[in-house]
């Protein structure tokens, strides 16, 4: 009883605040003790009611509508993504403060986003999940404030941020307040970039200025058929350029994962996306202060991979799948590929080596002979920079015939874009291990994490050929006009189509049996875990954008 009285006293002291909140009909109660008790119980009830209301978002009817579209609600998504019972919510009571267009009458506790922190496989993550059932998930000042709060804290403690996007766009009723909110988020996206991993999962519409937040994050994933990303929707497109285009064609998952390269991967549905995101998250360190995570691993570190001895075909022009090489080498054949359907002539993704997360980059001889072009250079560069920013060692498999020639590439700026990949590899200070499986021709040889770009360990398989170009082209220049090309080609092949020219110069450290590649890389990674390398002080570097 005494405790209760004390509590009531404190409530009395705060009555100035209470007066503002409590409905008028309750004001005459707290003049005596019994009234004060009733008030406390009333507040408790209100808290409970508000919580219940917040949990329902925009209400049962809108939840059903969301389900009908094949989508989960903001809270359901959080619960699928996070470890059971780990979610800690922030700002459940925060409401928008717009008083125009009758908005003051329509308020939802927590407004149109659920924010907080939780754990994925035991590790902390900060998260926001936009609630489409409240004002279509539109971004109000309050919404932005909530998002900014968890982002600030994520940077403070060094833990990743995951955004689950499902929003119709700006809260138009709030006008510039909403735009300010976007900008506040953008600024934090940029500040967090390279400090903590940021992941966006687009699970509904994301249009207009809103698209730039996912674009600033490290990874943008989409859900097939239910998510869209575009600057302007089909209606505006029609009125401006008179193009007829559907939402799906303009900004669906397929468009962004195959054509534009805006998104990094697409998933079948909400549950598939969230469960896969759990697996993906496990590859990432929590921040740039953490080492690449090492998980327990049953796959023997020194496992021989006999299949690799024959993976490169006998005919030097025949294609093979570089993913056979990757899958053979990495732990348990598990490879999380990033952008599997875009610029497929380069393969990038995460895997583990003896439990440790590594980034894998490989030319793909199966697609466009594995050449480097604009899209593959940009895809590779962004991935390499992510790995470097977050201490993830990079393993590069090289089978590259060179940069793709042609007007479309030159006009498109292959020089500028190709330079990005070169830049990214050159600037990276994480452990860099390179395996030349077959061709390493021309400038592309230099680019692909060569010894000259501070590669820590560079290997060649017996099938490696490091040269300025292929035999035919080389002979036509060296022996211009000669009638004896066949013989000279043979001479060139004899001289250059093998790993010796690079090995005798120390540009590759060893010529290894393919079957031993896993063992060799694992040994090197253990040694390189202690690697310390830094670039000269600078405000920031100037990558050719």
């Amino acid at each position, binding site marked *: 009883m005494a405790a209760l009285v004390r509590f009531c006293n404190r409530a009395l002291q705060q009555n100035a605040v209470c007066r503002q909140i409590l409905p008028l009909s309750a004001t005459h109660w707290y003049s005596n003790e019994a009234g004060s008790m009733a008030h406390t119980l009333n507040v408790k009830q209100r808290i409970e009611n508000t919580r219940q209301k917040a949990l329902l978002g925009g209400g049962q009817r809108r939840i059903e509508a969301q*389900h009908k579209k*094949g*989508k*989960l609600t903001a809270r*359901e998504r959080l*619960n*699928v993504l996070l*470890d*059971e019972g*780990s979610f800690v919510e922030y700002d459940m009571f925060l409401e928008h403060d717009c008083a125009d267009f009758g908005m003051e009458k329509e308020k939802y506790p927590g407004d149109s986003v659920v924010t907080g922190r939780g*754990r994925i*496989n*035991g*590790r*902390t993550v900060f998260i926001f999940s936009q609630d489409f059932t409240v004002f279509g998930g539109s971004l109000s000042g309050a919404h932005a404030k909530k998002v900014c709060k968890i982002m600030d804290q994520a940077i403070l*403690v*060094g*833990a990743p941020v995951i955004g689950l996007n499902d929003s119709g766009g700006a809260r138009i009723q709030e006008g510039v307040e909403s735009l300010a909110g976007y900008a506040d988020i953008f600024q934090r996206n940029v500040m967090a970039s390279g400090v903590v991993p940021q992941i966006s999962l687009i699970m509904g519409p994301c249009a207009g200025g809103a698209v730039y937040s996912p674009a600033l994050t490290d990874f943008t994933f989409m859900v097939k*058929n*239910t998510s869209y990303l575009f600057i302007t929707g089909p209606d505006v497109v029609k009125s401006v350029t008179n193009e007829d285009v559907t939402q799906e064609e303009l900004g669906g998952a397929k468009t962004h994962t195959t054509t534009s390269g805006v998104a990094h991967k697409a*998933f*079948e*549905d*909400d*549950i*598939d996306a*969230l*469960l*896969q995101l*759990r*697996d*993906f998250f*496990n590859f990432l*360190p*929590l*921040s740039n*202060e*953490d*080492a690449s*995570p*090492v*998980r*327990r691993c*049953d*796959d*023997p570190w020194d496992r021989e991979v*006999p*299949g*690799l*001895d*024959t*993976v490169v075909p006998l005919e030097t022009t025949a294609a093979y799948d570089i993913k*056979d090489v990757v*899958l*053979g080498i990495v732990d*348990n*054949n*598990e490879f*999380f590929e990033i952008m599997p359907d875009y610029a497929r002539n380069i393969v990038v993704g995460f895997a583990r080596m003896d*439990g440790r997360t590594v980034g894998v980059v490989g030319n793909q001889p199966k697609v466009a002979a594995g050449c480097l072009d604009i899209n593959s250079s940009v895809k590779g560069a962004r991935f390499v920079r992510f790995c470097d920013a977050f201490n993830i060692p990079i393993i590069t498999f090289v089978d590259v015939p060179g940069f793709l020639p042609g007007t479309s590439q030159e006009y498109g700026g292959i020089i500028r874009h190709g330079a990005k990949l070169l830049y990214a590899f050159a600037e990276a200070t994480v452990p860099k291990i390179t395996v030349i499986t077959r061709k390493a021709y021309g400038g592309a040889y230099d680019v692909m994490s060569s010894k000259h770009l501070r590669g820590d360990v560079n290997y060649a398989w017996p099938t490696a050929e490091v040269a300025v170009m292929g035999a035919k082209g080389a002979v036509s220049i060296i022996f211009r006009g000669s009638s004896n090309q066949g013989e000279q080609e043979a001479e060139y092949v004899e001289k250059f189509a093998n790993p010796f020219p690079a090995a005798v110069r120390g540009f590759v450290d060893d010529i290894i049996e393919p079957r031993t590649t896993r063992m060799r890389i694992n040994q090197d990674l253990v040694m390189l875990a202690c690697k310390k390398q830094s670039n000269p002080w600078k405000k920031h570097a100037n990558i050719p954008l």
Partner: protein
Amino acid sequence: MADEAVCIGKAPTSESYLRMDRILQAVKDTGAQAVHPGYGFLSENTTFAAKLKEMGVEFIGPNSESIQAMGDKIESKRIAKKAAVNMIPGYDGVVEDMDHCVKLAKEIGYPVMIKASAGGGGKGMRVAYDEEEARTAFRLCTEEAKSSFGDDRMLIEKFVDNPRHIEVQVLCDRHGNALWLNERECSIQRRNQKVIEEAPSVYLDPGLRKEMGDQAVALAKAVGYDSAGTVEFLVDGKKNFYFLEMNTRLQVEHPITECITGIDIVHQMLRVAKGHTLLHHQSDIPVDGWSFECRVYAEDPFKNFGMPSIGRLSKYIEPAHIPNVRCDSGIQEGSEISIYYDAMICKLVSYGPDRESARETMITALDSYVIKGVTHNIPMLRDIMTEPRFVKGDITTNYLPEVFPDGFKGKQMSEVEMEQLVALACAIHETEQQNSTDFLNQNRLPVVKDAKSQWKMNVEVAGNATYPAMVVKDNNVFEVRVGENTYTVAGDLAFTSPLLDLVVNGQRRLLQFVEKGFGNYYKLRLFGTVFSLRVMDDFAAQLQQFMPEKKEVDLSTVILAPMPGMLKTVVVSVGDQVAEGQEVCVLEAMKMQNSLVAAKVSKVKKVNFKAGDTVNEGDAIVEFE
């Protein structure tokens, strides 16, 4: 693999294994004294044998005369008849006309088989059960034969209904000695190709065995045979046996005969070729134990009991470590199964003192056989091994279509078997989950591990149902409650090998971890068949109801390549109107030509490949509007 290898050309057989000149050159270069021609290619080629003779090199096989005599259908029958071998009743000449055909059919007794003299591959061949059918069959066969072979001569013989295919191994030397090494039962066939063989046959008693053996030897002697060979018989439901043909080479399935007789047939062939006499007498030849051979093919048993498949063997572990198991193969991890050769991966042979133990050993061997990278027929082989009719030995050449009238659909699991699979999946998933939080270096922000020892899970079996399960872990033993039953899963769940040797409720279960997909997807192989599973907690499983159904590709608007191969012809072009069932293209794969037809009346929207192109399984060749 070989001690010494010589490259004889490119992958297509016409540029290598069928190039006599190259092989002869290799013989010369290596100084070989003899050539064993193996099973296919030049093994029954008399020109090749003659050329070797010219070079003074021994051809390890029978003399050319017997190859020739037995290679000719009519000639071989004539010799067999003379040697008093049981023949399929029939007419010894060409059928004159329709009335003659009916008259002959009456004499022989229905059912009869009417077939073109020049026939082959099932063309111009029909079975008639009465007079009316005989007339129709004669007319159709004549027409077909005329258009297909330009030769409408017809033969007629008794049709042996539901026969068994039983063959007798013979072994002869150049000194007039001939032995029969018991029989092999080869009734399990698809498209006239053998899939599973066993020796001996459950159907033969010692008397019948001797009778068939003696006839086989009589034939061999009649033709002057002087190597290892096989006399094939059809055996009907009344244990009548009829001569079919003689194979004048070593048979693929010879290991099972070696197992039960203890005789190394290839060794004997080498000795005979050198001119030695046989070391054995007929009375020395035992039937000692039982042996099975499964032909492990790179093919998809779910399509027409086996459509060829290609790929690289990304993981390959033969079960040769199991006692009483023999693996005859010519490949290893990393090998390519290509479109150029027969799709056989391995001859998997098991042996035991009796049929039951040999069968058990085969089951363990099939369950332990790890093949990744190509589709293979182990699911079907494994399923046949436990199928009641097979277990009893009640088999005929119609076994597959009779037992699987709608085609092979994978192992049909009983409820208890399904629950065991679910229990195994739960144990694997939970182990995976625990590994996922087992970080060795994440110590700045602490990792909070799942403190529970009891989990609710839901296992979705693709094409089946979702099974709720309660999982309890106690001392590395999982106790999983599925439905009414509780299963304990014990054993080493470390993923060091794709093969997990586990114990479920005291029973050994060889489980293969085929693949783990991101998002809790698993592919597990149990009882030979691969099952796709997804494990979810209760919460996610309940929400699954809101997820949209996955849209299947409308197969009537597109022609997908059913298997990898080369397009022989594409007979439509963009804008063409096609009728339902109209041939759109012909795909050639390995030994087969497949006609791909339009599923409905439509117009061609897109043709993605042209004749001569190589296509992969699942490629859209033609798209319709």
